[in-house]
Each structure stands twice: as C-alpha cells, then as structure tokens.
C-alpha cells in the first residue's frame, strides 16, 4: 500500500502532527512500509472470531461514587506552561 501527499496531509490532521512540505515524501514512504506489514494480516481467516480487547476478557470495574481526590490545583498547575488565576492559558480562540 502506497500513501500519497493527500493521505499524509489527512493523517497529519488526524494526529495533530505537522509534516513539513519537504518531509512529506519520506513520511509517506515510511508509513507505507508499515502499512505493508499490516497487509500480512489479510492472510488469516478471522471470520466469526470475536475481537479481543482485554487479555483476560475482564470488564471495567466500578467504584463507589464518592470524592477521592483532594484539590491540589496549585501543585498540578505548577508544571503548566502558562497559567493565570488557576486557568490554563492558550492562544485566543474567540475574537
């Protein structure tokens, strides 16, 4: 399977990862090699096999609906790139 520029741009948008114009061909080749590996899966007859999400087929455990976390926003926000008045700062979204 060979990916072209359009597919790389699409994947770049899905993954929110920038691919520079000059890197598109290289990225396309490397991703295509990996997708070629995936085509080997086609050799297996999986009809009727139930997809497996968890090795022990376990289900999600529920916990009591009670507060377990204490407020420690100052500690957690001390490692944030930009914070003001307990809010994370990002570039303006709404004009």
């Amino acid at each position, binding site marked *: 399977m060979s990916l072209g520029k359009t597919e790389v741009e*699409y*994947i*770049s948008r*899905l*993954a*929110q*990862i*920038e*691919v520079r114009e000059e890197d598109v061909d290289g*990225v396309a080749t*490397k*991703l295509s*090699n*990996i*997708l*070629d*590996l*995936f*085509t*080997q*899966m*086609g*050799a*297996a007859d*999986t009809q009727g*096999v*139930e*997809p*497996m*999400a*968890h*090795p*022990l087929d*376990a289900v*999600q*455990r529920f*916990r009591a609906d009670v507060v377990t976390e204490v407020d*420690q926003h100052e*500690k*957690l926000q*001390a*490692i*944030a*790139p*930009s914070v003001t008045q307990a809010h*994370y700062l*990002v*570039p*303006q*979204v709404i004009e």
Partner: protein
Amino acid sequence: MHNLTIKQMSEKLHSGEITSVQLTQHYLDRISQYDGDLNAFVTVTPELALSMAEAADQKIAAGDAELLTGIPIAHKDIFCTDGIKTSCGSKMLDNFIAPYDAHVVTLLKKIGMPILGKTNMDEFAMGSSSESSYYGPTKNPWDHKAVPGGSSGGSAAVIAAGLAPLATGTDTGGSVRQPASFCGITGIKPTYGAVSRFGIIAYASSFDQAGPLTRSAEDSAWMLNAMAGFDERDSTSLEREKTDYTAELGQSLKGLKIGVPAEYFGAGLDPEVETVIRTAITEVEKLGGEVVEVHLPNKDLAVPAYYVLAPAEASANLSRYDGVRFGYRCDQPQDLEDLYKRSRSEGFGEEVKRRIMVGAYALSAGYYDAYYVKAQQLRRMVRDDFTKAFESCDVIMGPVAPTSAFNIGEKSDDQVSMYLNDLYTIPVNLAGLPALSVPAGFANNRPVGLHIVGPYFSEAKLLNIGHQFQQITDWHKQMPAQYQ
C-alpha cells in the same frame, strides 16, 4: 558488594555488617565512575538516595524492616516520581516534574528502597534499542558498540554493569525481556494486570505491564513480591489475593513439561542463538524436564496485529500532550491548532510521531474494520494458540529475540526490521501471559536470554524454573570485565 544476591545484601544490612548508606554510596560511586560513558541514567538522585538510605537504616535499627528495606533501586524514567523529573525519554517531558508517585514507586518507597535515579529508555517506550531517547542512546555494558535493547535499555544496562542491584522496567511488546536478553540479566513480565499501571506513563494500555530487572530469578521473585498486587486506581488491576512469588523457589522440576514450538526455530533465527537456546533447554531436561512439541500457528501474525493495536492505543493515550497543561509548549503559538501541532511536532521524536500517525490512520473511518478490528481478532487467535499449547505443556521455551544485541545505528533507519525483532515477545503481550528471560549464554560474543512463557498467574513457577536453571549455570553471575 555489587556481586551479592539481594538476599545476601539484606542479611548484611540486617546483621549490621553494612548500612544502607554505605550500600547506596557504593552504587552512587559506581554510577559516577561509569555512567558518563554508558548513558544509562537520565537523572541521578544522590541526595534523595542517601536521605532515603538513612531513613532505611533507622527502620532496620528499629526492627521495622522488610527483606528489601535499604536496598537501592533505579526506576525506568516512565514511572512518575513525585518531585523528580520524569521524562519518558522525550523532549516533550524534559521539563516534567511528576506531581505524584506511581503506585509501584509508592510501594517500594514504603519498604524503604532508596531511589538512585531514573533510567534511560526509548522515547515513550516505543522501541527495541533505547536509541530513540531524547537523551541519546544507552550503550550495552558487554559491548559499547551494541544497543542494550529496549525500551527498558537503561534499566537493563545498570543491572548488567552493577550500577544498581534492582531496577524497574515496563514491557508492552517485550521491553523487559528483550533488554534483559541483550544485557545478560534476568527480567520478568508478569501477567497483565498483576502490577498496577497507576502513574506509569501510558503507551498502549491494554499491553503495558511493569516488571523487575535483576541479576537472578531469585532477586526478581523478591522484587515482584514488593511490586505486585491489586490497586484500585488502575482500572485493569487484577483483584486477586496477594501472591508469594518466592513460594515455589526450590521445588524440583521433575516431570515439568516443556513445550517447544517448532515455529520458534525457523528462518531468521541466528544459528548461534539457536544453539544457546537448545543447549539451555537440554540443561532444564537434566533437571527433570521433558520436552514436548507444541504449535503456535499464528505467531507471525502477532507482529502486524501488535503494530496496529499498540499505535492505535498510543494515538489516543498521547493526545494528552497538547502543550496546554504540562510538558513542552512551542514558542509563540499563532492559534490553538498551531499550539497543538507545533508543540507535538517539536516535542515528539520521529518514531513516536510515526506510531501516533499509524495509530490515528488505523482508527480512522474506512480503515477501522480492516486494521483495528482485524488485529483484535488476531489477538484472540494468538491467545487461543497459547491456551491450546498449555493443554499439553506446563511452560513454553524458546528464544527472546532472533539475534543477540545488534549494533547502535544498525536498524534505526529500518522500522519494519526493528519491529520484526520482537516476534517472540509480542505474542506474549497480545495474550497477556507472564514470561521470563534468563541469561543462557552468548552468541557472537553478546548475551542471549532463554524465554520461558507460562499460563496466566504462573510467575512463581517461571521464577523457580529460572532459579533452578541458575543453580546449575552461572551465566547470570557473569559481568562484563570492565565493570567487575
């Protein structure tokens, strides 16, 4: 001191012959002597280690100690450690001071195990060579031209070089066992869910499992006792009674049925590795084991299935790195999308970006069934192969990797070749089974590990098999000449 077993170290600590401060200082001295060249640590924490060692000595003096109290440890830099940089080998987290401890770290701190530092690794645990770290590659102590394996390559190298007596690792597709094999040490990946994932930076959550890296199987058993157990903060933690992983040490292997899959010894396996593995299996036969042939027909489909599923999970897990709440943020973002895209593009390395993109693609509309669902179906078929094999044997033995350690730079441009290096370890992660690597000899003058895979919850049995093997062999006692 660095040649003692954990039990011997503990006896000396408890009898007062040595103190934890002396033992910890001994390892800190070795780290400053050797790590400049080896690059096995991202961060060394001497002050913390010595203050924890002092507290451990007080615990021992007060008679409030356990076997591992006072024994220093190195943590893979994927385990969050409160107040200490936790980089996961990435520029993205180069500025990340973890605000809490991983559950495993909490458990080992409580016992009183001084933290020597954080070990180098493939970025976000995505790799088999520890070359993709933002902090540069770790070298293999046996041969500095070789990789130590990965992703827990730093942890494996510190054990092999005697820079720490114990180290933590994580194994998503082989990341404890393959570096253990490449560095000539012992490492076990427990049953999925046996060790809490809380505070371990997520790569592929349905595979990620932590395990010990040690010199001997006996040391691993003691360490796993301290690491494993139910944790309500991990939604896939297994609710089982506490297991004593040392309980079977010393049992006879008479009558042990060793499954040897014909598929494990096909094309691509280095002939010298094959000789080492076949010789090791013969040794276990001498201990009373009996070889039976088993089959794992879908083994070759495990690698492509894994490289769909793990990147798919990674693409979701790593969406949290957006430059907003923690981690790397690009300079002067123009708008929100620019902030996301540039922070991620500049903060992640090439292999991580590649896996996120592959994962996002595999999950995208139109490809979900062909890739993701198909891979999940194969995952069940691989698991069922093991279930069937274990009807006629107690454990499965074979190689951990098709070769001994390859050279630094040898595979870094060929991802698919690097991926295929994990063909023996990945099926075990798909199935969630426990598996051990014990040193079994050398191929091309580099160490080779014997892979011992067991049914769910058979860790104690696997560790005893490793222990019995280590009673009649001395591969685990050997150290590279320059580090003795």
